[in-house]
């Protein structure tokens, strides 16, 4: 990962890409493509190359390229990654299998429908921008109250795809939404009552089975597993306090 722009020698990699177009490529199949890759070539670069030169009908989601938009989540050799930062030569095999994320309806090829994700994530009420924790020794300039930055979570849906629970329980809020709820609670964006109304039920914070795979695959340092557990602790504390106040 410390590659500072050195491309190194090229190597031919075979991509096996899942293809599906309702009514046209149905049932789904794998198509095989060959691309030249160097040390900085990513899976997304390879897909763009394939689309431009080999098969213009290949569909995948992508936008930004530096792991900031969260659109290019996909399963590369069976593990969820952002295509834009998954380097082809670091996948451990000369044949790389590319598949869509699980736990979201499949639209075509590698494209999944983000609607169910957005419906579960948005009510968490996390703000897009937060106070920046970087360079704490820095003064702020005149006219800027406090340095701000975007939140870590890029809503890529990768954590839900890797979560064994989210894969079989579509009602589960999922790691991203729960982590966002925790952020909304910590920043004061939402009141405890609002946050707990969102997470304190069978398909909320209690549904997690601690596989912690969300944290393992998260490409953006969110550590949702940790935040889910922290949310549980806050919730238990809140309930215990309320119980004794009432008594």
């Amino acid at each position, binding site marked *: 990962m410390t590659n500072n722009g050195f491309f190194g020698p090229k190597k031919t990699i075979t991509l096996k890409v*899942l293809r*599906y177009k309702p009514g046209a490529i149905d*049932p*789904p*199949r*794998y198509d095989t493509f060959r691309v030249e890759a160097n040390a900085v070539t990513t899976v997304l670069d390879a897909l763009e190359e394939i689309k431009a030169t080999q098969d213009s009908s290949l569909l995948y989601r992508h936008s930004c390229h530096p792991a900031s938009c969260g659109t290019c989540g996909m399963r590369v*050799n*069976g*593990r969820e990654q952002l295509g834009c930062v998954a380097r082809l030569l670091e996948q451990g095999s000369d044949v790389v299998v590319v*598949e*869509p994320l*699980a*736990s*979201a*309806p*499949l639209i075509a090829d590698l494209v*999944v429908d983000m609607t169910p994700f957005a419906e579960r994530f948005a009510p968490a009420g996390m703000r897009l921008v937060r106070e920046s924790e970087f360079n704490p020794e820095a003064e702020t300039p005149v006219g800027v109250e406090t340095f701000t930055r975007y939140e870590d979570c890029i809503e890529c849906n990768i954590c839900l795809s*890797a979560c*064994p629970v989210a*894969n*079989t329980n579509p009602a589960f809020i999922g790691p991203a939404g729960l982590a966002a709820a925790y952020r909304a609670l910590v920043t004061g964006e939402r009141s405890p009552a609002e946050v707990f109304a969102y997470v304190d039920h069978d398909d909320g914070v209690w549904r997690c*089975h*601690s*596989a*912690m*795979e969300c*944290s*393992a695959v998260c490409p953006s340092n969110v*550590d949702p*597993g*940790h935040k889910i*557990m*922290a949310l*549980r*602790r806050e919730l*238990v504390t809140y309930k215990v306090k309320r119980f004794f106040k009432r008594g």
Partner: protein
Amino acid sequence: MAVPIQHKSPAARAVQAWFNPLKRSAGFLAFVLMRITGIGLVVYLLIHMVVIGNLLRGPAGWDSLIQTMKSPWVLALDVVLIAGILIHMLNGLRVTIIGLGFGTQSHKGIFWTLMAVAVLLLAYSAWLVFTK
């Protein structure tokens, strides 16, 4: 032919989502072990109740049961049972600890430590089962 998980039946989906630890990390392995041992222990309980039902046949049934139980094959099964209990119990401890918000960032270490404890206890139990 490729079948994306979205197109699989609920049962096939569960098998893929719950029992495939390939390419996954320690927490996922813990989850898989928890499911397998959990299901195993439930099945054991059912068998156990049927077997214990033999007692209703009186002292003769009891004696033949004890004879079967002493066979090395059944003793080996006992060790498997103990392994299941240990894994499930100690994993439950891990889930409880991190579920309360402690050690969530060192959950992998907790898992491997507890599994090491499970192996030691299992070795000791196996020695007891086969020698005492």
